[in-house]
């Protein structure tokens, strides 16, 4: 059984940097990020878009990278958890998740933080209901979500300079 595998060049902006990577037509974004680009902060919890651990931002919108054909991001901007901190300086959401105790096993954390970032990027002071709606695609099995909501509010306050 021999088959010719056709490779394609995928070019996109990844965490602010122009990136080109050779992929196959049926590659999913999550596998390109994790296996080709070695950005393992994006987690694979279910592979079918249910758990939200693989959430990344595509042009600022949270998407399940496990459901997304990699070619769909051609020419677009992708943000992963690795793109949030500026060197040693954490994003306010990262700081707040730590301070609020919103992190236990940490497996949902990257996706949770990115979903929260998409919310705070366009909503300065979200209500509890808005936070719940924004994070409803991200399952956390450890924390019962209470400290996650506290963390998002804390981050909103930090971003608003209060």
């Amino acid at each position, binding site marked *: 059984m021999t088959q010719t595998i056709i490779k394609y060049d995928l070019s996109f902006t990844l965490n602010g940097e122009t990136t080109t990577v050779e992929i196959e037509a049926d590659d999913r974004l999550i596998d390109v990020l994790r296996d080709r680009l070695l950005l393992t902060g994006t987690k694979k919890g279910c592979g*079918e878009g*249910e758990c939200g651990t693989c959430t990344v931002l595509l042009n600022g919108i949270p998407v399940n990278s496990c459901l997304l054909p990699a070619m769909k991001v051609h020419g677009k901007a992708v943000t992963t958890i690795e793109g949030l901190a500026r060197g040693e300086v954490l994003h306010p959401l990262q700081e707040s998740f730590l301070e609020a105790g919103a*992190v236990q*096993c*940490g497996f949902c954390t990257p996706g949770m933080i990115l979903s929260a970032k998409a919310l705070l990027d366009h909503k300065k002071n979200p209500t509890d209901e808005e*936070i719940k709606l924004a994070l409803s695609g*991200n399952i956390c*099995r450890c924390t019962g979500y*209470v400290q996650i909501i506290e963390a998002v509010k804390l981050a909103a306050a930090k971003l608003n300079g209060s």
Partner: protein
Amino acid sequence: MENEYAVLGRPITFVDGLKKVKGQARYLDDISLPGMLHARILRSPHAHARIVKIDTSKAAALPGVKAVLTGKDCPGNRFGCDVPDTFILPTEKVRYAGEEVAAVAAVSSKIARQALDLITIEYDPLPAVFEPETALKADAPLIHADKPGNVAKSYRIERGNFARELARCDHVFEEEFSTPRVLPGYLEPFGVIALWEPDGRLSIHSGIQAAFQARSEIAKALGISPSRISIKVPAIGGAFGGKIWIRNFHPIIALLAKKAGRPVKYVMNRQEEFMASRPRVAARVKVILGMMKDGSMVCKAMQIVADNGAYSWAAPKVTLNMSMRTDCLYRFKATRTESCLVYTNKTPTSGFRGYGNSQSHFALESMIDICSRKLGLDPLQVRLKNASRQGDTTLHGWKLRSCGLGECLEKAGAAIAKDRRPKSENGGRFKRGIGIACMNHVSGNRAGNNFDGSSSMVRFQEDGKLAVYHGESDMGQGARTIFAMIAAETLGIPVEDVIVMPLDTDVSPFCFGSYSSRVTTVGGKAVYLASLKVKEQLLDLAGNLMDVPPELLEIKNGSVFIKSDPDRKLPVAGICQSAIRSKATKALTAYVAYDPPTQGADENFYGDYSSAYTYAAQGVEVEVDTQTGQVRILRVAAAHDVGRAIHPNGVRGQVFGGIAQGAGWALYENIVYDNGELKTTSLRNYNMLTIHDMPTVTPIFVETHDPVGPYGAKGVGEPTLIPMAPAIANAIEDAVGVRINKLPITAEDVFAALYPECHITPVR
């Protein structure tokens, strides 16, 4: 009250939190080794079938495939916990749909998957049995030839004279309850990387809760000596009891790696997690409760039929816990339990947060409300009247050195009764009610005369930083943070100066594992004792350097000072340097193997077996939509006797998380089979609690300062889940007057109970 401690009780950031928020924590699937292959496992489509023929030749010939494994390639050693009935891969027959039959290692997962399709297996299907009740029938097909009647394990435990006590009761009540299979549901799928080192030793990377138990079980399966294996534990993405014990894939992948001569990685996919993980033991529990008319509970009997699945993992132990622990919640005069754990042709069951104690608490704590209502008594007062108290020795010989059960009940009861929403709204469509349930649990569990301890090594480094070595896993609950805090507090150094080392059985001290809510209590005590020893060494040395007797010295904020003259001080870092890089050659190291002062249970299961016993009461307010039967949890007041809260925000996290899982178990989660065929194969049709469903929670800490635990601390991991289901069932009855004795309590169940004239049969 002012906090007398420098570290304990303070808002310390989890020590491994930073890398987690940066996406840099390394979980198993984030690890790649040079030359590493990827494995996939072929699983049986049949629930019960003879294996006639396996042909792997086409798979082996596929380019990129490096090794194929079937049962005939494996040593035939039996392994498993109490009832070792498991083989690495079956050769004769398969006993559940999803059982491992063959495995392939290839250069990519894709090729490994393709290779699985090329393996042909001829099966001869056998009659299968899916429910314990049918498996117990005389004409039922036998699942294991050497297990007559399909009984994996049975217990009969009686204390006092049950029949005599029952005869003198004013009232005798009887009810039956059932609880389903549910998944621990950790988000990180389980897996392993196996690699044979050039010296012939086996390295296993796996996010497992009990590394040393894994080492001995893998050794047993492979027929090699435990010290030939090293277990390296990366970050663990949740576990909840589901990752305590090894799975078949651990030895399978080890053998594939040996055959291929290269490292092999295997990570379950989510569908496999549903098909072949280890769900909670489903059980039917019949309770007989004898009471006096004043509300005194005199005696209790239980008959339990529990579903083991096709092989025995922790289910025998889970069933034992189910059979005993609630006997010690109240001051019964007599108890009797007869339980039977039964093989079925379904996925093996095992432990999940609560480890059997949750199942029997659902039964008993529902029962108490049912009976109290029948007697016209307040269920909370009945509980308080009968509650076990500090100083008691229970029917099973447990010595209650600390017990805050009464205080938990009072505080949770008061908190949930306060600020209630209206009992009825929207013309009576929405009805609201409150309910309470309490629980007891353990912090460690000595089986027989076995070790139930934990070890720790604490070592100062030349720069004054402290390395803590430990063999207990951190699955996210914060064990590493607790260890760092206890060491820092005991040694008077900042928590930032403590490094908790990675878990590797080659280096880490011998420990039993992160289960039984034992890690803070027993593991933390080992850190405490080792830190004390190192402190003694450090003060001796400082005494020499400062020319004062060491008993006049103390350590605070990283400096050793003279108690009567605090300005005369030396920095810990300087002392360490002069000890390690000098002819003084002091080790500044202590290794402590600690075993708690309990005697363990005898062959009749009598005896004090846990370092500490934990107590909790949770009050719940629910809202029932009487048009649909849907139940919404509005508020929870959770009072927990944690001994002492070493990390209060961490305890809050345990409380919230346990409530979320307990609410899921009570209302949403259920592994559904239809005539043996698994229907819940995906998170699409298995509902875990989302952020929308989480109620408002008021955590209440009851601090009883246990005399044995480190700084008085006890465990809290499992207790947070245990009272949820019965408290919800009790609140539903308070709201709408219907009683549901099965979990999950679905909208259909409530609707059918509200409108019996509609003759609705809820889907089971």
